[in-house]
């Protein structure tokens, strides 16, 4: 049985194609303004690259904020369930999932059967999300992909106390004006996001093993900051950013 999962997030659109339990294909593209165009393009590309026809696909599940825009979707499932299913696919013993995406950060608790026990999400403010990191990268004039390397060079992370993205940006600009080392600022930003995540985790109770999914999981500095605060190692699947789409494809196979 061939199933497809499409995850339309606020920043990126992800797709996964599975045959039974075998992951055959994944891809990531920017969501842009037109979510309909975004999924159509990534879907067409998948068919071309894999040589599959639409008639080969038994079931298609959409997830993410743009899930309702996928007109060919046979089922729409929220990203909480899909990220949990995706994490369990890579780490069957998973008990908790940290997912930091473009506009959301989530902590999901899972029981032995893979059912979701509880979840908490960030408040309305974008602080603690991928968008927050993008804003900070812009303020610091560095590429977001360089955050990981630069934070690794930090000797003394600064403390970012503002919990609001806009205020935190002002705080970062003030630190730059004071001549604070860029590496220390980036490490401080990671620490502030990690602190927010820890507060969220403590609301439902921490359980291990913990899997980290979502685009921000690619940032090793961010991962290390969380690991340091929770005192345990995070399991990060190679396909962490596509975990929601993979979970959608898995849930599509019933």
């Amino acid at each position, binding site marked *: 049985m061939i199933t497809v999962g499409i995850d339309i997030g606020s920043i990126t659109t992800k797709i996964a194609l599975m045959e039974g339990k075998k992951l055959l294909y994944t891809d990531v593209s920017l969501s842009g303004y037109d979510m309909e165009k975004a999924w159509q393009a990534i879907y067409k590309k998948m068919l071309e690259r894999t040589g599959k026809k639409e008639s080969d696909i038994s079931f298609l599940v959409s997830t993410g*904020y743009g899930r309702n825009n996928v007109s060919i979707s046979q089922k729409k*499932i*929220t990203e909480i*369930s899909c990220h949990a299913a995706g994490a369990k696919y890579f780490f069957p013993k998973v008990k908790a999932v940290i997912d930091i995406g473009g506009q959301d950060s989530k902590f999901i608790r899972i029981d032995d059967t893979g059912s979701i026990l*509880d*979840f908490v*999400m960030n*408040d*309305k403010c974008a602080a603690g999300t991928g968008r927050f990191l993008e804003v900070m990268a812009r303020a610091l004039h560095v590429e977001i992909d360089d955050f990981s390397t630069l934070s690794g060079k930090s000797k003394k992370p600064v403390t970012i106390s503002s919990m609001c993205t806009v205020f935190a940006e002002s705080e970062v600009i003030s630190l730059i004006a004071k001549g604070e080392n860029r590496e220390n600022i980036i490490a401080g930003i990671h620490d502030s996001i990690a602190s927010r995540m820890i507060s969220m985790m403590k609301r439902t109770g921490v359980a291990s093993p913990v899997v980290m999914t979502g685009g921000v999981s690619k940032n090793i500095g961010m991962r290390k900051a969380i690991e340091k605060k929770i005192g345990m190692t995070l399991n990060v699947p190679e396909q962490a950013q596509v975990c929601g789409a993979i979970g959608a494809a898995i849930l599509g196979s019933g």
Partner: protein
Amino acid sequence: MRLFAYYDTGHEFSEEIVMAAGFTPYKILGDVNVPNDPADRYVHNYICPFSRSCLTEGMARSDEWAGIAFCHGCDTTNNQYDIWKHHVKTDFLYWINTPAKNDATARAYHEHELRRFISHMEKHYRVDITDDKLSEAIRTSNSVKRLMQELAKLRPVKDIPNDAYHAITRKCVQMHKDDLIAALEKTLEEWKNRPAFPSDCLPVLLTGSDMTYPEGMDILEAAKLRAVRDDLSLGERYFAETISEEGDPVKALVDYHARIPMPPTKIPFEARLVYLRKCLKETNVKGIVYQILKFCEPHGLDLPYMAGELKKDGHRLIVIEREYTPTIDQQLVSRLESFREII
């Protein structure tokens, strides 16, 4: 009959006193569709947006009102009294200091405050607020509360959209009571004939900040969640109890306010749990939606304890932070749908 406005973000104000004085009580609820200017000139925009909307309404409409009374609905209401004194044109602006505690001393103080308010009303408007008039107003109020109790009982069994219930709770605090009773009787007949509770909707208990406009309920409807119980001021807090029709009517009002479901401004905050647990025992809800209006301090401060206790009781609970906007927030709808999925 002329409107007498009151600014009370909870259910602290004794409407019966202004009814006995010959006015129609009108709860100021702001207007989410009107920008919060000019209020923003006088209140910082980190203060509750609903309270700023109320000030905007006060500045625009005070000439339609015979007077305005304040109650300690929340700290923001309380502390805006002086701002209103300076920026809202009215001949009568009165502040009733309803107590936070609920013991014998606090009740005696509350009685004193109500009698002082009555005395000021009598003097200013040259009316006699007699016990007979108060008792009559209490009977009218009780008729409203009993009708609302009947209507609310239909929520878990009939197809009553969230905004339809919300609309009648608003009418309760803004319409003339005789017209209101007629409207509620008509609604009751209509609701009794509605189809059964829809099978694709999940019944939930709604708690936290009051969303004071019907569009505020749209996110629940979009996520196919139906609030069948609540402890809101525009909701069950207003009608869960009736007022004693025996004895001294002022004492009856004090006693009534000591028995109603408690808001987050009261001490101790465990008092709120009593009513929530009663609702959860009486009605088979599948989860709890705990909404916090952005910058709503009393609920923000209550939340960790309350949510923790309700979760310890074994209930599914989701916390959502609401903006003061009529627009449906798809991010919140998505979170509520996730909540629905895990239920």
